[in-house]
C-alpha cells in the first residue's frame, strides 16, 4: 500500500516526462500549426537508442545525451523531408505524420525486435523519509525534466531567441519582414521537440520497461498535457504536467494504472468542452 507521497512522486515522475513530450508538441504547434502524431515514436526510439548505448557500455547519463542527439537529428530530417513541403496544407501534414508512425514504428521493430526493452535502474537507492520509501530514480527523473522545462521556459521568455520565436508565433510575415530567419527557427523548434522526446524516452526507460508498440499511448498523453495547458503555451504544458501527474497519482491508488491514459484523455475532453484554449492558451510562453 503506497502512501500519498509515494504516489505523488510516482505520478509526477511519469507526468513530467509527458510534460517534456507536451512541450515539444506545443512548441511545434504554436509555431507552425503542425500536429505531429508521430511524436510518441520519437520517445520510444529515444528509449531504444538509449538501450543500445547502454549495451555498448556507455553510462546512463551519456545514453540520455545520445538519445537526445539522435532523435533531434531524426527530427531535423523529418521536418526537412516531410513537414516543410507540406507547410501550406496542414491536413496533409497530419496524414503524413500517420505514415511516419507506421514507418518509424516498424523500422524500430526491425532494428530492435518486438520485445519489451528494459534497463537496470541507474540509481538503485531508495530514500527513506520517515517510514516512506521513495525511489531515488523517480526523484531524479522528475527533477531533471522539470529543470529542462524550466530552462526552456526561461530561454523562451528572456532570451533573444525566445523573443524571435514568440514573434514568429504571433505574426510570421511580420517577423520575416523584420529579418528573422523563420525557417531556421521552425527547424530548430522541431529538432528541440524531437530531441526532448528522445530524452524523455531514455528517462522513462529508467523507470520501467517500454514496449516498442506504445508510441501511440505516449503521443496521446503528450497531446493531452499540451491541450490542457493550452496548445502553444510552454508554461501551460509545465503546469498541466504537474496537475495531471497529481491527478493520476491520486486516482491510481484506487483504480488500476492501465487506465492512466483515460485520465489524461478525460482531462483533455473536459478542457475542450469548458475552456478549449486550455490553461494558458494564446501566446507561446
Amino acid at each position, binding site marked *: 500500500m503506497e502512501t500519498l507521497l509515494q504516489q505523488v512522486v510516482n505520478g509526477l515522475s511519469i507526468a513530467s516526462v509527458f510534460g517534456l513530450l507536451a512541450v515539444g508538441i506545443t512548441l511545434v504547434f504554436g509555431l507552425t500549426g503542425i500536429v505531429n502524431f508521430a511524436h510518441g515514436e520519437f520517445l520510444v526510439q529515444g528509449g531504444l537508442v538509449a538501450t543500445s548505448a547502454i549495451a555498448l557500455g556507455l553510462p546512463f547519463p551519456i545514453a540520455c545525451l545520445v538519445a537526445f542527439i539522435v532523435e533531434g537529428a531524426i527530427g531535423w530530417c523529418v521536418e526537412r523531408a516531410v513537414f516543410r513541403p507540406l507547410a501550406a496544407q496542414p491536413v496533409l501534414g497530419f496524414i503524413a505524420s500517420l505514415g511516419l508512425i*507506421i514507418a518509424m514504428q516498424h523500422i524500430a521493430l*526491425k532494428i530492435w525486435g518486438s520485445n519489451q526493452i528494459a534497463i537496470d535502474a541507474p540509481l538503485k537507492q531508495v530514500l527513506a523519509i520517515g517510514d516512506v520509501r521513495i525511489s531515488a530514480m523517480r526523484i531524479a527523473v522528475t527533477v531533471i525534466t522539470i529543470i529542462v522545462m524550466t530552462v526552456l521556459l526561461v530561454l523562451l521568455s528572456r532570451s533573444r531567441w525566445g523573443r524571435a520565436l514568440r514573434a514568429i508565433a504571433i505574426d510570421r510575415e511580420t517577423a520575416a519582414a523584420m529579418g528573422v530567419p523563420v525557417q531556421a527557427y521552425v527547424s530548430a523548434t522541431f529538432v528541440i521537440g524531437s530531441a526532448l522526446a528522445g530524452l524523455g524516452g531514455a528517462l522513462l526507460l529508467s523507470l520501467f520497461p517500454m514496449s516498442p508498440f506504445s508510441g*501511440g499511448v505516449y503521443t496521446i498523453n503528450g497531446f493531452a498535457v499540451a491541450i490542457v495547458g493550452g496548445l502553444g503555451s510552454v508554461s501551460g504544458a509545465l503546469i498541466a504536467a504537474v496537475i495531471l501527474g497529481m491527478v493520476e497519482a491520486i486516482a491510481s491508488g484506487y483504480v488500476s494504472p492501465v487506465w492512466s491514459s483515460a485520465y489524461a484523455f478525460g482531462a*483533455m475532453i473536459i478542457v475542450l468542452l469548458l475552456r*478549449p484554449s486550455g490553461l494558458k492558451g494564446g501566446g507561446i510562453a
Partner: protein
Amino acid sequence: MIEKTLEPSVTSTASTFRAQILSLVALAIVLGVLPFLGINSQFMQICTLAFLWSIAAIGLGLLFGEAGQMSVANGALFGVGAYVAAIGAREQVLSMWTALPVAAVTAAFAATIIGAVALRVRGHYFLIITFAFAELWRISTVNLRELTGGNQGIMVLDPVVLPGVGEIDSLRQLFYLALVAVIAASLIVAWLRSSPFGRNLRVVRENERLAISLGLNAARMRLTAFAISGALAGGAGVLYAYNLKHVGPEQFGASAGIQIVLILLIGGARSAAGPVIGALVFFLLPLVSRLDPITTEILYGLGLLAIVLLSPQGLVPLFASLVKRAWRKKKPSILSTTS
C-alpha cells in the same frame, strides 16, 4: 441583350455521378468474375476481407473526400461493429443480420459523441480526439476483460445464415456477400455525394468560414458525415467479425485507423471505385512481394508519406489520368470527369 434565365447546362455533379456509377458497375463485373478465373481460396478470402475494410474506407471517403475532415477513429468504429457482432453472438442475442443495424447505430452514436466534443473547437482538435479515441478503444478492449475477452478477444463461431438459402459457409459465397456489401456501400456514398448534402460537405471543405457566414451549420454537416462514416464502418465490422471468426483488441486501434487512411489514399479519396482498388492493392501486394510483414509495413508507412507528398489525390486517380492522357492522344473523345 440581357439573358433572362441561366442556361440549363449539364452540371458537373450529375456527370460525375454517372461516371461513378459506371465505374462501380464495371468494378462489380470484374470482381464478380474473379472466382471463376481459378483463384485459390487464400486469395479469395483476402479479397473478401479487403472488401470489408474498403467499406470503412468508403465511409471515410465521404468524410474526408467531400467534407475535408480527416479521422483516425474509423478503425475503432470498425472495431465497434465487430465487437457488437462478437458479443451479440457470444451472448446469443444477435444474429449477423440483427447485428448489422445495431452495430451501425452504435458506431454512428459513438462517432456522434466523439464529434460533438471535438467539433466545438477547431479542426485539428477533431483529429487529435479521433486519435485519442482510437487508442482509448484499444485500451478499453484490452482491459474490460469480462465484456471483451481482453487480449484474447472473442471467437465468432456462429455461421452466417441467409434467410431462404440457409447457411453460407463456402468462401465463394462469403466473397459474393462481401462484394454485394461493398458495391451497395459505394452506391450509397456515390448517391450522397451527388445530393445537396454532398454539395454542402464540399462547401464546408472549400471554405468553411464562408459557408457559416451564409448560414450553414458547418459543424453539424461534418458531424453528420462522421456519423455516416461510422455507421458504414460499424456495419462492415459485423461482416468482418463473421468472416474472420475472431475479434481482438490489437486489430482496431490507431494502426487500423491509419490503415484505412492509407487504403483511401491509395484509391483516391474522391473516387467511387478507388477505395476498393486501394484495399485490394493493400492486401494483395504482400502476397506478391514476398517481403516479411515488418518490411511491408515500413514500405506502407513510407508509401503513405510518398502519396501525401507527391499525389495526395490518390494513386489510382493519378494512374487513371495518366492512362486517360495517353488514350486521348490516340483518339479524341469526350470523356467525363474522373470516376
